[in-house]
């Protein structure tokens, strides 16, 4: 094949670029390969793409992979079920934002620039979702974030924005209520990771804890990616708090939990949904993680009768269910539903269809959204770590 292609061209190559015979042959073979690849593509069926963005590399990649599994499963199930929109196939485009707001915006711009993309599922971190949501809004592109829980994102008033989880103005107060009323914590120290999510959640917790009359001993920030928190924990130890609350993600959370033991800091430890990943217990060691509490942005998916089919399908395909897989699955399914309702490859039609959604039968019950785009399913779960595993305690209330 290669020779047949390059033979008539060889003399011209030699005269123009003074390539020798082997070089020219190489050029010819390469050229014919490009041609072959080009030709062997499957017959072109027009495609409708669903964008997906989360950290797929870096320290928070385990969370991102969990989400990607959920999104993939939803798209695969639709693909197996025939054409969602007549004459089109559906595909998922997964991009990596490395939990970095700058990367998040450039991923968003890339999706916006692709005319085949009609909706986006993402991102993970509120600090990424916040700036990216403005990009999607400008392009009139539907965005559903599965798990970014900072309430300020939906308060921007973007009609393109939806989310399928509870927000931190519920999660924070719910945590504070458990801490003060049930664990009897009178002296509390707050740590956050200075991100949109962490700082926002910590402030919500602080507000409610003050209201409940707790004594806030301090509120400190740490840097994402840092490894040594022993100086901060030593300082906290001297203040003898009943409870330390950390609003941040699991890589730093795990080190705080482990080093807390190393400096001999007693009392309770509580965190938000950013800690909800089995990797947390691995990194922190089961010994140190035993008995910590954390709130989540939804109820226990394993306890949902409506989610059993999903859990079986997911675990058969991708292994143990991650903390955020269900939310990504839910968000992707809702996006696919909107595309089906729209019935065509048109961003505006998809967005218009999304607005008509009512009582969507989701994993956590009937999904409806308020005028800001936030899910009306507002359960906050309370978990603990028992025998090296997360154990569901109850659905926590926030007032």
């Amino acid at each position, binding site marked *: 094949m290669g020779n047949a292609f390059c033979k008539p061209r060889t003399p011209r190559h030699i005269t123009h670029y003074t390539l020798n015979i082997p070089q020219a042959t190489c050029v010819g073979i390469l050229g014919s390969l490009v041609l072959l690849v080009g030709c062997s593509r499957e017959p072109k069926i027009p495609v409708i793409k669903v964008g997906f963005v989360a950290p797929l590399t870096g320290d928070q990649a385990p969370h991102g992979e969990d989400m990607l599994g959920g999104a993939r499963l939803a798209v695969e199930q639709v693909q197996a079920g025939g054409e969602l929109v007549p004459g089109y196939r559906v595909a998922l485009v997964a991009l990596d934002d490395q939990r970095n707001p700058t990367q998040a915006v450039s991923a968003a711009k890339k999706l916006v620039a692709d005319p085949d993309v009609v909706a986006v599922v993402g991102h993970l971190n509120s600090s990424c979702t916040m700036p990216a949501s403005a990009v999607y809004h400008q392009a009139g592109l539907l965005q559903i974030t599965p798990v970014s829980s900072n309430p300020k994102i939906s308060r921007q008033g973007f009609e393109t924005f939806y989310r399928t989880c509870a927000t931190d103005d519920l999660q924070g107060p719910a945590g504070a209520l458990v801490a003060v009323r049930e664990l009897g914590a009178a002296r509390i120290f707050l740590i956050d990771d200075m991100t949109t999510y962490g700082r926002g959640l910590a402030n919500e917790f602080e507000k409610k804890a003050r209201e409940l009359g707790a004594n806030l001993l301090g509120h*400190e920030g740490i840097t994402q*990616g840092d490894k040594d928190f*022993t*100086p901060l924990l*030593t300082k906290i*130890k001297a203040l003898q708090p009943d409870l330390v609350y950390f609003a941040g993600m699991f*890589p730093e959370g795990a080190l705080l939990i482990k080093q807390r033991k*190393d400096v*001999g800091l007693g009392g309770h430890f509580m965190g938000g949904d950013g800690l909800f990943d089995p990797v947390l217990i691995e*990194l922190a060691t089961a010994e140190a993680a035993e008995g910590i509490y954390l709130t989540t942005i939804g109820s226990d998916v394993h306890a949902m009768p409506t989610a059993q089919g999903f859990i079986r399908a997911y675990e058969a395909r991708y292994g143990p269910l991650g903390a955020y897989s269900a939310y990504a699955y839910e968000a992707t399914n809702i996006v696919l539903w909107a595309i089906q309702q729209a019935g065509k490859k048109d961003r505006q039609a998809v967005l218009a269809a999304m607005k008509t959604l009512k009582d969507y039968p989701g994993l956590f019950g009937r999904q409806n959204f308020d005028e800001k785009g936030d899910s009306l399913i507002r359960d906050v779960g309370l978990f603990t770590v028992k025998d090296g595993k997360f154990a569901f305690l109850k659905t926590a209330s926030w007032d």
Partner: protein
Amino acid sequence: MTPLQVFFQQLLNGLTIGSIYALIALGYTMVYGVIQLINFAHGEVFMVGAYAALTILLVLGIAQPLVGWLLVGVVLLCGIASMAGCGLLGLGIERFAYRPLRTAPRLSALITAIGVSFVLQNVVMLLYGATDRRFPPVIAPLRWEVAGATVTILQVIIWVSSAVLMLGVQALVMRTRLGRAMRAASHDLTACRLLGIPVDRVIAVTFCIGSALAAFGGMLFGVYYNTINFHDGYLTGLKAFTAAVLGGIGNIPGAMVGGLVLGVLEALGAGYLSAQWKNAFAFVVLVALLLWKPTGLLGERVAERA
């Protein structure tokens, strides 16, 4: 806890990370002393050392904390293997990246160092993935109360082993023929050559020793913090470089003192001022110190060479 006990605990916290900084800083300072090159790939060698130790632990299939002689054996094996591996890596980097540029302008070698650092980061990322890798728990958590402060077995291991290594390096440089050759090379390479000292070999050995020390630091870092990531070499390397400058770059006891001082300063800054300014505080102190004493804590004024 009384304020004094808190201070004592902060000192211990600082000495732990400071020991690791000091081990890495030695490599920066030794290489700089001999050929006036800031080896920016050194932080990456440290990271490779941690991954080498991790690989050994994974190959041995260790999932549970070990006890007794088995623990000592495994730790020694890990340490020796990662030091040997990174020593060879250091030799390779010197041979293929820096030696060809020995007579080139200093800037070329500096840029090459940055290039080597990118190569190492990306190779490790491709081999081990871009996510955090967990270190298996080799050593069972064991803690003691000492004068109101908590000390863990790992901290003790870090202090003792890095002290032994640092004393070893000091003895090697001050008391052996090789050390004398290294000190001579740091004064004047050309004169050394004229006197028949195999300069290239001395430089290669310097790289090898520096890299091995960084690898040991990497292993301690991985075991202490439980995780390692392909970009962990960057910030830690930068801190160790700061420590070397703080102590007076080119000066071996200076690097040790600089590492410990930097670790303690960070701990005190985070403990008494604010944790979110921890990194900034260390660098502010560096700038202030250099304004007051431009050669670093133990550095001596050297005439600028033509």
